[in-house]
């Protein structure tokens, strides 16, 4: 053996060993001590936060009848990692989906995660569920998760109740309570009372293995929370009246709003055309929503709160009340009418002249109310006609016109009462009563919603006060209603002036020339007022407001039928049928009922 000094090489080798060991220790120091992100990752791996969904509150009508409740539905989930080879044709048949759809859904789930469950097919009805679940054992990796869906036993009040849909990113950003895939109220009552209805979610933390098999609760469930069920709501709505009204309106466009005058509770809020609320539930929601959106009759619009109409003759009563209140006219003030020759506004009715307030109202005499309105603006109580206009404008607000009630009806419009500033701008400061004369007969810039019209009927029925119209009657388990719902609002016009106007509304039914004298309700005294509203876009709108019984009204309502002509022809009989149904439970005028239900005013139909 050749002698060479190789002992230095031992040191080199020991150096290599030590260096590698040192590198490992340094790397491990960073991995285990410095970097904390791995701790999180390991928790993400093993902990599953399972949301426990509470049941959403039910919605009942004033009689305790169910309007909305929950029905079980099922989401089919898939964990791609657990999926074994199987007969895809059979599977597609079972679920009634296309092969291409199947592939798309599965690859979407795969892209999300191979190890975590994702929704494969959502909201399968409980009927289909039973059938599919029986055969699901052939297809490992797929399983069901229970969910609830809204269900509507009667296909009514779609707009009032609103719908429930999946949250979008903006909702999640606004309220961190929501997580992707959660449901929330998108419109109507569902939207307004979302916080009461939704309850509160619970959380269950479980540990899972790599195959997502549950391995028990985390720390014996110390961090778990139970879901709290949503509260049930009772509405002032009368389901029977609502259904009846919807039937009466089914072949026409328009709306009916009925209110209980002693409380402001809305008895029915009907808009037509409407739709079956069950259409916007579950898997078919998107498709049906699109169809409704494209419908030329625009069934998604809630005309009762967002339809704005010139009030026409019904508005004359408000002008009269304002004038009486400031002494611009009194009960006996007479004005002359020259019929068609009247200036600046002609009269379309044939009657005696000169005439006093009650006769003017019975005949809906335009010149009389033009003079009334002029007397308001030129009243000696005010510095000038503009100050008088301001007073008039404020009085309109006190009648609930030109403002929203802001109770529990989302997307309510305010209508329009033009302000002094508006006219100042329009006429560059120079205008007078003559310029704005259309306001005297409820035409021109004035717009009101059917809800505001119904509230006018309430005010007159109550002789001067109202409660803000609202849908909620009570929240089950909550004693108190919001303050604004129980606050009595005075119009500031004395009740003796209302007596005159109220009397004139009684004459509409009882008077010899009353416009609704043919629709008198047997055994019930009612007040009413027709309106025929000029519509620049087509046929006149037929309008009617009413309250009954006369002395202590239990129902006040407004009916608007678009493009139907005279108020007395359609809106009036519909209003009386509604009153009869509500107060007597049935109608003894079957022929009228039948005619109203069957006649159509929809040109498109």
């Amino acid at each position, binding site marked *: *053996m*050749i002698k*060479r000094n*190789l*002992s230095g*090489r*031992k040191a*080199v*080798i*020991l150096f*290599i*060993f*030590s260096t*590698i*060991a040192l*590198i*490992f*220790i340094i*790397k*491990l*120091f960073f*991995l*285990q*001590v410095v*970097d904390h*992100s*791995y*701790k999180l*990752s*390991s*928790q993400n*791996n*093993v902990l599953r936060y399972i949301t426990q969904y509470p049941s959403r509150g039910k919605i009942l009508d004033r009689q305790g009848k169910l309007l909305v409740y929950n029905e079980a539905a099922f989401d089919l989930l898939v964990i791609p990692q657990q999926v074994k080879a199987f007969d895809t044709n059979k599977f597609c048949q079972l679920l009634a989906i296309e092969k291409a759809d199947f592939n798309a859904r599965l690859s979407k789930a795969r892209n999300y*995660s*191979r*190890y975590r469950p994702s929704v494969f097919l959502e909201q399968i009805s409980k009927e289909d569920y039973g059938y599919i679940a029986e055969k699901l054992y052939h297809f490992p990796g797929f399983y069901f998760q229970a969910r609830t869906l809204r269900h509507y036993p009667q296909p009514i009040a779609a707009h009032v109740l609103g719908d429930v849909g999946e949250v979008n990113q903006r909702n999640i950003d606004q309220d961190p309570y929501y997580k992707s895939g959660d449901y929330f109220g998108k419109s109507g009552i569902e939207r307004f009372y979302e916080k009461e209805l939704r309850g509160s979610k619970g959380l269950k933390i479980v*540990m*899972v*293995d*790599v*195959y997502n098999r549950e*391995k028990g609760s985390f720390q014996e469930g110390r961090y778990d929370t139970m879901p709290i069920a949503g509260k049930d709501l009772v509405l002032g709505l009368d389901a029977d009246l609502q259904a009846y009204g919807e039937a009466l309106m089914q072949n026409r466009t328009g709306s009916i709003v009925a209110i209980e005058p002693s409380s402001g509770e809305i008895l029915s809020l009907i808009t037509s055309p409407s739709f079956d609320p069950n259409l916007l539930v579950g898997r078919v929601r998107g498709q049906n929503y699109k169809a409704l959106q494209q419908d030329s009759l625009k069934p998604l619009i809630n005309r009762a709160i967002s339809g704005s109409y010139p009030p026409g003759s019904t508005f004359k009563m408000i002008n009269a009340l304002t004038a009486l209140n400031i002494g611009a006219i009194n009960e006996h003030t007479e004005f002359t009418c020259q019929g068609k020759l009247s200036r600046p506004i002609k009269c379309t009715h044939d009657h005696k002249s000169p005439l006093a307030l009650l006769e003017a109202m019975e005949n809906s005499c335009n010149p009389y109310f033009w003079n009334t309105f002029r007397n308001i603006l030129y009243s000696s109580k005010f510095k000038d006609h503009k100050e008088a206009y301001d007073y008039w404008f404020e009085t309109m607000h006190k009648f609930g016109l030109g403002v929203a009630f802001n109770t529990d009806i989302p997307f309510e419009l305010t209508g329009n009462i033009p302000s002094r500033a508006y006219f100042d701008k329009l006429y560059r400061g120079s205008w007078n009563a003559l310029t704005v004369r259309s306001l005297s007969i409820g035409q021109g810039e004035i717009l009101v919603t059917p809800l505001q019209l119904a509230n006018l009927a309430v005010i007159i029925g109550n002789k001067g006060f109202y409660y803000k119209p609202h849908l909620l009657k009570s929240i089950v388990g909550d004693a108190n209603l919001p303050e604004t719902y129980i606050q009595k609002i005075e119009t500031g016009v004395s009740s003796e002036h209302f007596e005159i106007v109220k009397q004139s509304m009684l004459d509409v039914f009882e008077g010899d020339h009353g416009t609704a004298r043919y629709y008198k309700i047997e055994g019930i005294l009612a007040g009413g007022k027709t309106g025929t509203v000029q519509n620049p876009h087509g046929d006149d709108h037929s309008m009617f407001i009413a309250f009954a019984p006369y002395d202590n009204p239990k129902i006040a309502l407004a009916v608007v039928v678009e493009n139907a002509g005279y108020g007395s022809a359609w809106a009036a009989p519909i209003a009386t049928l509604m009153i009869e149904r509500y107060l007597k439970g049935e109608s003894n005028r079957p022929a009228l009922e039948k005619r109203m239900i069957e006649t159509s005013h929809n040109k498109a139909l």
Partner: protein
Amino acid sequence: MIRESRVSSIDWLSLSIYIILMLLGWVMIYSAVYDENHSSIFDMSQRYGKQLLWIILSLFLGAMILLIDAKFFNAFAYPIYILVMLLLVGVLLFGSTIAGSKSWFQIGGFAIQPAEFAKFATALALASYLGKLNRDLSLWKTRLTAFAIIGLPTLLILAQYDTGSALVFTVFILVLYREGMSGALMVIGGIAAVLFVITLYINQWYVIGGLGVLFAISLLMIRRNRSNISKMLALLAVGIAFVLSVDYAFENILEPHQRTRINVLLGMEKDLMGAGYNVNQSKIAIGSGGFTGKGFLQGTQTKYNFVPEQSTDFIFCTVGEEWGFIGTTVVILLYLLLLSRLIILAERQRSAFSRIYGYGIASVLFFHFAINIGMTIGLVPVIGIPLPFISYGGSSLWAFSIMFFVFLKQDANRLNIL
């Protein structure tokens, strides 16, 4: 003066570390595959129960080896080597395929992997060959014979598609280095590895450009005589040829899964649910252990199977997750202590055979240690080789134990050699 090899002359330090590592491994396996329905650590239906059996058998084998005459292993080095090579051929013909490698003999319920024993046989044969008088590793004949002894099992194991085990044999270069082969070979090997990685990272033409710049700088630094310049030019040419061939080799010679593993390591493939899943989960397991670890049986990453092969190749994850930085450091220091002790023991041998064999087993253990732990913490591509004495598995534990005890016997007998 002839002395009997006695129990007292056994190196108790290395034997203690060996036993500590095995017992640690047993407890780690218990924790890694813990199953509430089989909570006894002695349950023979579970891996931890079986591992205890392998440990007892290993100690039994060790005791047998200590009783055999120390000269036996030098004398029978070649027959043992030839027998194992035949087994390697046999496994190619009659073996069963487990996890993609045709490297197992299936006997009843047990599977034995001859490749594990090939390391032992090769260390023996190499020691026996180089240990003869007048072997000179500066001679090509000696070098080529040594390479052949190492190369034969390497090729046979490569043929079984067990690249990991085949790579282990490259570590014998350390032994050759200690015995006098030029260190330049190791340095060149190191540079080649660095160039290989750089070429995969960046465009090969940039690398060649870089080599050109290095060449130009070197020209300015050295004395510019003809012989130096021609040497430099030759080096440059070899470098360029190497870089060009790396790309070809990478695309055409490596298997797709091996390419992916290298890509994952270099961070060029980020698919954490696919190829990078193992390493990512392994790092999460170790990283989530923190300084002191989650505690015995509290490792969720390993217990719930997020880490693959958690009782065999990725057993170090359980150490990291349940015992934290303290645990991993202790294990690494135990290995370093054992390896250093083996080198010191090797250096004190009187016979060249014993010394070379000692270096052989130290190198093999080192390679396993470096690659296995490096893999779990993401420093080395995923190469499926076990962590010596700790990973679950009879074949590897027995093979390492035999290697270890044979050396222990040589050491105990060292004073009997003139």
